[in-house]
């Protein structure tokens, strides 16, 4: 590059911010026009977002179906499931009387796979993969991700991970069945559980590929947010979605490698005779040579990811909900800065609380003191976020779209699930509640249902941006109400079972007098789960139906939102904006501002003289 070109570029950067397209004409889609490069090996963030979302939907159906099967076992342990034999084959044993029962090994495999699939493939890849890809370039005003190629690889590593995990479901010895946390020695010893053989090997390979995907994606997201913001898009003008996705990506980059190191040590123990996690074990009739290792080391490495992981799941949902709530309340998100600081505080604290999963695992009780303190501190920024969401509604002009309904549902779920976290975070109460149905209820509500609600809010809200059509609102509302009522019907009663001491991961409860009081309740939960599952199929139907048959988007900005994605053409193009990138003049939340002619002012609208005099309005 010559000296003069260099100067020219500097001027352009000053004027327009960083942009690889310093000229006026749009690229359109011309350069990647064949089917394979456009839809399959696409490097376009919008296509990759859809790939993540649809793969996520596939996995969500698989993961949820598994939960229905094991819920049948828990609700109706003595009823025949012989009708599942065509699907599950040898995992259903049919006795002489024709009563089919689910094999306990496979029950545990279902429980394990349900957790793994939903946590990693649906709520990590499907949620932050989708919306980081869709929204980061759009909302910061970038042509695409910093590295579209790495971005493509990120999806395909996820795809590979999916393929490996999917194949493992069909292994003769069964998929891995030692719980989604995969604690050794159970996960290390094929002698201890049939799923710990080939199933565990494939589980480890799959999740290692998955971490590669997360890292490639995460590096891209962070780089894009930090370097490719359009002119005027200062950090304090970014929508909360971008803040949330940025912190999510940072958490992933910092914590997933630790998980992989834990996995590698586990692979060494499994295949190379090392003793990182193994010590003094007598299994299957013989004593192992391994001494000196500690299973608790694995738990530390796992939860060093595992805890940030729950925030990797919930932060994007929080970001989506903040945006959706603000748009549909026609009000700025209340306390924007407090929201940003809360995200940062939660992100930071999420690295200091991992051992609260391990209060009863044999770590020195003294250590738990610190983790109790940090865990309960995290309640403060979480509470601030809740109060801010509620205040956003105050004096709003609320449109109850499906997206908004799910956003409100999210806040309710986050409150309910968050409050039970106050019990569990206190180690003294964890003595009784650890590994009971209380914790099952807690984490399903706070990071399962809540994250799904955030995701649904996001899908309903940004569906027009993805497909140029709307999802059907009637079906959306039916979906919301069945899910809202049904999710509470499923998980609320589990608190009571947990308080009565019923342990999680039991194949049946009648082996203990103390745990066998809840037969009717378990049946109720199972029926509720089946109904809620049906409602999710309705969502899936609505999703695909609307891609082709939904009401067409006729205006660029159907919701009257301020963020930049709604300034792009209805028919998405490669490079997102024809001509120059939009220049940003204000924050994303100038809704219902006095003196404005509409109830929103988009980010690229210049400030009026009066506004300049008053200074920027920030939370």
């Amino acid at each position, binding site marked *: 590059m010559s000296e003069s070109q260099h100067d020219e570029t500097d001027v352009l950067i000053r004027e327009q911010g960083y942009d690889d397209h310093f000229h006026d004409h749009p690229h359109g889609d011309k350069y990647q026009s064949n089917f394979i490069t456009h839809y399959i090996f696409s490097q376009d963030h919008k296509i990759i977002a859809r790939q993540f979302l649809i793969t996520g939907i596939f996995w969500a159906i698989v993961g949820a179906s598994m939960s229905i099967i094991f819920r049948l076992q828990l609700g109706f342990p003595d009823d025949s499931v012989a*009708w599942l034999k065509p699907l599950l084959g040898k995992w259903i044993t049919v006795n002489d009387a024709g009563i089919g029962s689910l094999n306990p*090994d496979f029950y*545990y495999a279902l429980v394990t796979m349900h957790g793994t699939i939903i946590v990693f493939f649906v709520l990590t890849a499907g949620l932050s993969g989708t919306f980081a890809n869709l929204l980061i370039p759009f909302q910061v005003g970038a042509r695409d991700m910093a590295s579209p190629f790495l971005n493509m690889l990120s999806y395909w590593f996820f795809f590979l991970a999916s393929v490996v995990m999917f194949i493992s479901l069909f292994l003769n010895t069964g998929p891995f069945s030692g*719980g989604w946390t995969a*604690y050794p*020695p*159970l996960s290390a*010893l094929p002698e*201890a*559980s049939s799923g710990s053989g080939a199933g565990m090997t494939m589980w480890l390979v799959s999740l290692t590929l998955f971490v590669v995907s997360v890292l490639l994606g995460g590096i891209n997201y962070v780089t894009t947010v930090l370097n490719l913001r359009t002119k005027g898009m200062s950090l304090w003008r970014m929508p909360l979605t971008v803040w949330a996705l940025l912190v999510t990506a940072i958490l992933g980059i910092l914590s997933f490698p630790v998980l992989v190191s834990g996995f590698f040590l586990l692979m060494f123990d499994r295949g190379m005779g090392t003793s990182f996690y193994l010590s*003094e*074990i*007598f*299994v299957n009739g013989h004593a192992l040579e391994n001494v*000196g290792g*500690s*299973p608790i080391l694995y738990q530390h490495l796992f939860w060093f990811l595992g805890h940030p992981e729950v925030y990797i799941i919930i932060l994007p949902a929080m970001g989506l909900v903040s945006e959706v709530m603000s748009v549909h309340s026609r*009000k700025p998100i*209340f306390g*924007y800065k*407090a929201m940003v600081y809360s995200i940062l505080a939660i992100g930071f604290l999420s690295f200091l609380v991992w051992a609260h999963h391990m209060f*009863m*695992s*044999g770590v020195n*009780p003294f250590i738990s003191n610190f983790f109790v303190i940090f865990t*309960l501190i995290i309640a*403060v920024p979480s509470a601030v976020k809740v*109060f*801010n*969401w509620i205040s956003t*509604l105050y*004096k*709003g*002009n609320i*449109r109850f779209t499906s997206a908004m*309904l799910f956003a*409100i549902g999210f806040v*309710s779920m986050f*409150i309910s699930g968050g409050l039970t976290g106050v*019990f569990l975070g206190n*180690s*003294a109460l964890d003595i*009784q509640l650890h590994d009971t149905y209380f914790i099952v209820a807690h984490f399903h509500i706070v990071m399962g249902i809540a994250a799904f609600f955030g995701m649904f809010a996001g899908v309903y809200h940004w569906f027009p941006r993805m497909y140029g059509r709307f999802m*059907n609102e*009637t079906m959306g509302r039916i979906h919301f*109400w069945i899910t809202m009522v049904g999710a*509470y019907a499923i998980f609320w009663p589990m608190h*009571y079972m947990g*308080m009565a001491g019923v342990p999680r*991961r039991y*194949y049946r*409860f009648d082996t203990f*007098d103390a745990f066998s*009081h*809840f037969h009717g309740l378990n049946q109720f939960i199972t029926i509720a789960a089946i109904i809620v599952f049906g409602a999710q199929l309705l969502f899936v139907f609505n999703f695909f*139906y609307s891609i082709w048959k939904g009401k067409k988007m006729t205006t660029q900005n159907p919701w009257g939102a301020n963020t930049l994605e709604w300034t792009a053409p209805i028919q998405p193009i490669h490079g997102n904006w024809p001509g120059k990138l939009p220049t940003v003049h204000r924050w994303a939340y100038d809704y*219902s501002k006095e003196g404005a002619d509409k109830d929103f002012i988009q980010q690229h609208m210049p400030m009026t003289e009066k506004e300049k005099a008053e200074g920027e*309005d*920030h*939370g």
Partner: protein
Amino acid sequence: MTALIIILSIALLVIVILQISKLTELYSRIRGEEEVELRSNRNQGRALLLFMIGFLILVVVYTYWMKNYLLGYGPHKSASAHGGTLDGLFNVTLFFTGIVFVVTHIALFYLAYRYKKVKGSKATHWSHNNTLEIVWSAIPAVVMTYLVIKGLLAWNTVMADIKPDDSVLEIEATGYQFAWHLRYPGADGVLGARDYKKVTADNPLGQDWTDPKNFDDFHPDELWLPVNKKVRVRIIARDVLHSFFLPHFRVKMDAVPGLPTYFVFTPTKTTEEYREELSKYPEYNVHKDPNDPTSPLLWEDFNYELACAELCGKSHYSMRRIVRIVSEDEYNAWLSKQQSYYQNSIRNKDSDPNKGKLLGFEIKQNRDALNFSFDKAMVDTGIPPAAGAPDLKTIRLDFVQFEPGGSVLTSDSKYQLADLSEIMKKYPTMRIELGGHTDSTGDPVVNKNLSQQRADVVKAYLITLGVNTSRLTAVGYGQTKPIDTNDTDAGRQKNRRTELRIIAQ
């Protein structure tokens, strides 16, 4: 057929929903989007408010209805000393979180309802309020601080290990796929050493049989504990992770291979007292099997239970042991019935490293037995024994033995001979005859000579222990006085013996 009907009805449902959805879109186009949107907006707002009211009422009513099954309420109050503290902490937390739950839910749904979009409504631009934000950050911070302090005080008290001078019963629970194996220390009050490499089918815990502390350890099927006595459970895993969970006592701790953990607690209610408590509640006054009126009532059948709370494989859900909390007396009665695992199942089998060796506890047992025989023999003076009654004056010295084929005492024989010399001192006027006996194998003359030699050796040994030679007579009887058949090994073994007979008291 059923499957077909189900599939058809689902398909029908989908079509109905689809048609309704299409219709509403059509309807809104005819009536005007704006008006329809406003109307459905109003309906959704009302639905949210109704949901909130229904949800909160249900939560309260259902909680009340379930209370008898819950932590710290109804009959399920904690049965341990520390459990009450935890239940109290639970209630305090429930109090604060309950308030927050109700208030935030009312605010969330009421505000949503109140500020729904209606014709001509507008929002107010209200972006932040620093005072408000500081206040509502401070409130949770204060509440959390209180809960942390209360929680940690409880935690550090409950989890503290025993102090050296505590009076405590230490027992051990070992988890393996798929059961709990219990071990009690026996009379010495101390658990013996173990090593996972020593685990075999007949040594499930890998106890080290060269450690005398193991000799009296016993392995009961049920966990019995005396009420109001502090217990330290040593928790061990043999293969994978398990978790020692006593739900009624608020006790839980993982069992980790290679890392023994512990939990210290004090049971405060006996099983009987707990049953008594349950009997006051109607839900425990039904028959265990509802179809069988002769089956016990639920409260009569109640037992504390030990469970596993860490996923450990396919039968994780079935690691049940019954726990019984009993009075001190009942506990001692139970203790006296327990038999040492070593003495019962290992002693002198091939797997016993002490096979053939006399162990300290056996020397003591033998001494007690010999003393007992003499006590009986010496009391029973003057009166001639009835016909057929056992001859109390003749006492067999079972543990005086010789190297095979000769007349050299085995080294273990010295213990019983030492005991005998002590008895001779206790009864200074007693005179005894030492009799040698053989089985019928071999030449009778050789046998007679051998038995004479052996009796002489015993006599000589007693003399070295300070017994006056005049009090001792040595006689070799050979094979002439068998006490059992000579046709079996066991019989011949019995016949080869050294006896003593009290000839003068």
